């Protein structure tokens, strides 16, 4: 009996190190053994901006704890940037959504939590890729020559994408946890980084990778080049006062000027052709004549499916009497509208019956709104017809032809040249050096001329060019592109009672709210898991 027992113990011991491996998943060793494997891993590093999981459009999601359809990067980011402002209201009653416009969010807010986990997931993907893409690792797989050069470019871009996500976290959460590829994933609990230290990291990192990036307009469509690095630096410097307490408008001018003055960058002729199904034509690598788009998130109705990004911006915005056909989609989700504050920034439209699509004959063609059946007065945030419809993002091509589907082809720009014009002008007005007021006025008037369909009707004078004018111009030019919250904070108008909009602070006429809301809270779920984290004040 003892012998049998010993024999049995002996057999079980054999199983102690038995590795049974799955047939439909492969180890990192296998993935990174070929150049294609690196490319497919890099496709995830980029693709995590557009897709929500491994099974488009839905299923096998990257982020758990939130509905997968809502866990897309741009949708989360857009919700956090736009919904708490005068630019957007929404009917949805999904958890946390209404708390954003009402400005009563807490540390358990599902939307800001989703953004937090999404950004940090994407950073983890970058860190992981970078650990696999060191020259030594690449060489160990026997990959050399052009393939090794390609992987080195991927690595530089992964660093850029990581810096971008850290910028999002710095802007929204201020003091997130922080790790780079220097630490093995899973080897320890990450420390927290202060907003100032993170600013210095981002700036340093961007400057370090600047020489490593592919030259402007030389990279594949959808991939970042050197211009994207400059564009992000300019954006970060413009907000340096908010991030660090010390302004740096001079560097904002330096880097925005680099973008603006690089050959090939400029404006496409027609503003209303910006956010369309064939908008890859808005940059040179995408097949266009001019690069207005610097870097895009690419969606494809067949191959890159999801319920975020341009799918969300088109479907959620469609409702009431907005014709889905003209939006290029199969049907609306009756969600988001804008407030009368934004409508007031534009001249009165020539028509409001929907006959002049999409700008209603407004002299400023950027006013792509839908009036029929919509009331400018918002009595109920949950009623789609309260508020003005937005038809800026459409899934039709330049000829107005749509594929009429659930998913969209409209790519979304993360960086667009007009923002750099506006950064330049604002930085000059705010006292940065290296630029001049005349050039600034010229850039603004370029935007306005294009907006007014090439006419001079919108041109302003030097005297009219004030920082307040810039804020309004940003609302007109960059409307719904994910800038408003950051802009209002930079102007001190996000929380204070100095600027109100419908239902700000949960009150119909608007009310000021506490300043701590300038930062989103670190999700309480992560505070519970990571003892290194300290909650942002006020939460």
């Amino acid at each position, binding site marked *: *009996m003892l012998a049998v*027992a010993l*024999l049995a113990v002996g057999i*079980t011991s054999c*199983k102690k*190190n*038995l*590795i*049974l*491996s*799955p*047939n439909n*998943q*492969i180890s990192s060793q296998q993935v990174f053994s070929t150049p294609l494997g690196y490319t*497919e*891993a890099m*496709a*995830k590093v980029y693709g995590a901006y557009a897709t929500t*999981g*491994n*099974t*488009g459009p839905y299923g096998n999601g990257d*982020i*758990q*704890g*939130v509905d997968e359809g809502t866990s897309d990067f741009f949708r989360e980011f857009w919700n956090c940037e736009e919904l708490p402002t005068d630019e957007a209201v929404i009917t*949805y*009653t999904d958890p*946390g959504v209404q*708390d954003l416009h009402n400005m*009563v969010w807490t540390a358990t807010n599902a939307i800001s939590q989703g953004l937090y*986990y999404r950004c*940090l*997931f994407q950073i*983890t*993907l970058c860190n*992981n890729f970078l650990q696999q893409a060191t020259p030594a690792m690449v060489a160990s797989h026997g990959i050399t020559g052009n393939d090794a050069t390609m992987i080195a470019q991927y690595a530089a871009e992964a660093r850029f994408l990581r810096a971008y996500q850290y910028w999002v976290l710095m802007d929204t959460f201020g003091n997130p*946890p922080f*790790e780079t590829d220097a630490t093995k*994933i*899973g080897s320890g*609990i*990450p420390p927290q980084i202060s907003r100032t230290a993170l600013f210095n990291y981002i700036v340093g990192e961007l400057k370090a990778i600047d020489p490593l990036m592919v030259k402007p307009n030389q990279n*594949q*469509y*959808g991939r970042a080049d050197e211009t994207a690095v400059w564009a992000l630096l300019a954006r970060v410097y413009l907000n340096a006062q908010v991030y660090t307490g010390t302004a740096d408008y001079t560097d904002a001018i330096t880097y925005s000027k680099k973008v603006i003055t690089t050959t090939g960058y400029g404006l496409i002729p027609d503003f209303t052709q910006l956010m369309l199904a064939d908008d890859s034509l808005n940059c040179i690598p995408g097949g266009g004549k001019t690069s207005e788009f610097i870097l895009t998130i690419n969606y494809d109705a067949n*191959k890159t*499916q999801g319920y975020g990004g341009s799918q969300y911006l088109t479907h959620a915005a469609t409702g009431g009497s907005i014709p*889905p056909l003209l939006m290029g989609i*199969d*049907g609306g989700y*009756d969600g988001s509208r804008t407030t009368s504050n934004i409508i007031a920034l534009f001249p009165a439209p020539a028509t409001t019956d929907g006959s002049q699509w999409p700008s209603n004959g407004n002299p400023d063609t950027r006013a792509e709104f839908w009036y029929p059946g919509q009331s400018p007065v918002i009595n109920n945030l*949950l*009623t*789609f017809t309260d508020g003005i419809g937005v038809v800026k993002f459409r899934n039709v091509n330049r000829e107005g032809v749509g594929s009429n*589907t659930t998913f969209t082809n409209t790519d979304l720009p993360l960086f667009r040249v007009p923002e750099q014009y506006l950064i330049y002008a604002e930085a000059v007005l705010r006292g940065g050096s290296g630029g001049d007021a005349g050039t600034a006025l010229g850039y603004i008037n370029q935007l306005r001329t294009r907006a007014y369909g090439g006419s001079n009707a919108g041109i302003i004078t030097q005297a009219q060019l004030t920082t307040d004018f810039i804020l309004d111009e940003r609302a007109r030019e960059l409307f719904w592109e994910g800038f408003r919250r950051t802009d209002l904070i930079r102007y001190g108008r996000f929380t204070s009672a100095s600027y109100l909009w419908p239902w700000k602070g949960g009150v119909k006429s608007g009310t000021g709210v506490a300043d701590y809301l300038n930062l989103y809270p670190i999700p*309480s*779920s992560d505070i*519970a*898991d990571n003892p290194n984290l300290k909650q942002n004040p006020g939460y």
Partner: protein
Amino acid sequence: MRKNYFKKYVLLFVLITMSFMAFAQTGGITGKVVDEKNQPLPGSSVTIDGTTIGQSADVNGAYAITHLKAGTYIVTAKFLGYVASKKTVTVAASTVTVNFALQPDNNNLNEVVVIGYGTARKKDLTGSIATVTEKDFNTGEVTSPEQLIQGKVAGVSIISNSGAPGAGSQILIRGGASVNGSNAPLIVVDGVPLSNDGIAGVASPLDLINPNDIASFSILKDASAAAIYGNRASNGVILITTKKGQNGAPQINFSTQLSIGKLTKEAPILSPSQFRTYIKQYGDSAQIAQLGTANTDWQKEIYQTSVSNDDNISITGTTGKLPYRVSIGYTDQNGILKTSSLNRYTANINLSPSFLTNHLKVDFNFLGSQVKQSFANTGAIGSANSFNPTDPVYSGNSIYGGYYEILAPTGANPEALKSLAPLNPLGLLNEEQNKSTSYRGIGSLAVDYKLHFFPDLHANVSVAYDGSNGQGYNDFPAYAASQYPGTADVNGVLQRGSNTRYKTVVGNSTLDGHLSYSHDFKSIKSHVDAVAGYSEQLFSTTTTNYATYFGNGEVNPNSIPTYPTGIGQYDLASVYGRLEYNYNSTYYLTGTIRQDVSTRFAPGIRTGNFPSIAAGWVISNEDFLKGNPVISNLKLRLEYGVTGNQDGIGDYEYLSDYSLSTSTAQYQFGQQFYQEYRPGAFFPGRTWEQTATTNFGIDYGFLNNRISGSLDLYYRATDHLLAPQNEPPLTNFGNVITANIGDMVDRGVELGITGQIIQSKDINWSVGINFTLNRNKITSLTVFPTPNFPGFQQGGISGGVGTYIQLDQVGYAKNSFYTYTQVYGTDGKPLDGVYLDKNGDGVINSADLSVNHSPDPQEYFGINSDVRVKKWNLGFVARANLGNYVYNNIASSTGLQTNFLNGLGIIENGSSNVLKTGFVSGQYLSDYYLENASFFRMDNIHIGYNFGKVFGSTGDLKISGNVQNVFIITKYTGVDPETTNGIDNNNYPRPRTYTLGLNLAL
């Protein structure tokens, strides 16, 4: 006590005196001992009370006692498992004939109970083990084995998942030990532990076992009994024993039954006239214009009266030296929701020969089955509640299969469907073919050898294989409304119609070898039983991935699978041992140990040890209680053990492996699209849950065990709970992983009472009552103690996307509801959107949510009664749950003005609750929708008549009638208060079933 002793001695004195008085002449007693079926009971003993005179019955059950002095005797006939029978006999000079017909003992302590890796007499058990044998099984339309014992055992909750044919049940023993791991008990059929993994094409893997082939259930409820099953035993173990071959001439048993199922209650929605009134009152002209002229009861359209039948035939006997049992079963079950059905063939073979003068016993079992299922689109239930009841069922034209649909015509497409509008409920059912065919075979061969030179020792080796093959398809025709607007093909052209196939092959093999030793040490009044063994199971599941095809036969380019198959495998190797000791059948001590090595965990941390110890004291065997006429059995048990749980997690998750995205989740670089390689979340430190149970039990029997049962108190603590844990971001590729985190405790009381209220020749009445109280509490959930940690959301509801109604939170029961406190107006109506500002900060936000009731019953009862009067028998089985709460998701998602008059620009029907609340928009998290769903349910009423012999002296005919789901008493306002998760949302309703059965034994 003194008094009882006195009585006993007086009785003895009288008997002895009587026998002396009758000493003068001699005579004899002869006769036959038979069982309740008039079969002889060879080996039964017949004794004269107060003497040492006795006889064993021969093979024909005959006995003869001779040389008795004339006089009056009390003669007792006994047989293991039967109630002893006493007869007073007056013997004169001649021989008297006395026949005994023994009745089976319902409470027999000598009953042999199947325990893990062996058997034991019931009176020797030290663990909390409940047994249910064939005679106590539920009757009626029983498709799945677990339904045989629903409501019969304290501490075992069995809730059918839905009313769909073969939907299976949620089986919870003592509430289940896990939050996110599986709560399903380990099921062992004839010694083969089954995998809890599903079988493709079958709603419940247990459906593939014919309940008619089952002889008994043993339920190991506490850790001391279950620990011998190690890291799969935390949720208890159910041992199923199938029927075996019997000795003697062939016996044929044929049974057939016919069942009719009906819907018990329609979901409470507005009637067509109420709907018209409501729309006219609140709608605008465009909405009122959508009112049609039809009066359609959509629920009537989708439900039907179902007719089902079930036939079984079995033959058992012995040919030569080979005892056998062969059975064939056929079940044809139709659901009350149209297009749902289950069709099953089963075959069962048992051969149990013995060799070498019974030293070598072989037991061969095979259970085989084929199940064909048709699954109805249960989306039709929600659609029937929503679809405009003033619209007709059919459109009168051929578009969308002739079913009326809500259109939004455009110039380009006059047949365009209104986006997001409900689809025709009947169309949803009839325009989908979701069918499967599954096979399962469980074969086992066990050889038990009693050593010739050392007969106390047995060596037992068994091999078993549980294989299944499930496959099916889901087919939608191109004209189905659900296919609108279609999916783009390679040319970007929209195609409708789809055909999806699936197939999974499961093969689990088991090898087990153990030695068992049993010896009576008479000199020291001790008995020892010991078992030591080794077992290995290899689990393998192969899923074939198929592309989807459009209605025109072309492949959907987005559906081409990345991998043709997915193979999941894991290996479980174990050693186990048990030592049982008793002194004088009064003091018991049992210890068990099992070591499991599971490849589901990382090397280095995959070995687990699961010990248990138990002690028992049979007080009724002590001198001071021996022969007590009131207390016939009293045993105390004290048990402690550790078990594990490794279900609910994947096979390889300790590795971070990369998987390639599908073709619909690619990313574009330049003009090229690439599939994405995503590193998977991993948890190298994960291991099994560990549950420690302490149990204190009393087994009792009064009045010669006419009243008997058990009382158990338990305390169960689960550590390393497999629960979702937020991973600190940057440390893993998933932000929520299932990890060992948190602790939970369950405290409970179980009481079982069985009473033989009347026990006589013509009338027998027995009643069984069981009561269970269980309190669950999560005691820790986070890695670091976090006072303000909000908990984990559970229980997604329909209405708002990503809205959860339940919460796992420290200090509360798992899956407790998490709601706002509704504020009511002076008229008693809930105020739209007004909630209690719990923290008084003037703002209603998530900080004002509070943990509310639990969906689990706080107490539950089962009661069953059987009366036999001569050839009639009448009985019922009823259950009651107390303190279970249900979230009425139908009311919360459709009882809203914005549902009836919605933003899509169409009108929809919904819960009549809107008339009570007048709510305009969604109040999903209001506790208004949380209802006390305590209920009393009459599960089963049955009546039977035994015709007895119908063909001369051979045939034995019984006819029975049965009603299941007879009635329910509850305050719950929805359709059915019994749910598996506390959320009532368009569940497939449980039918009321009427069954007529016939059983013929030859």
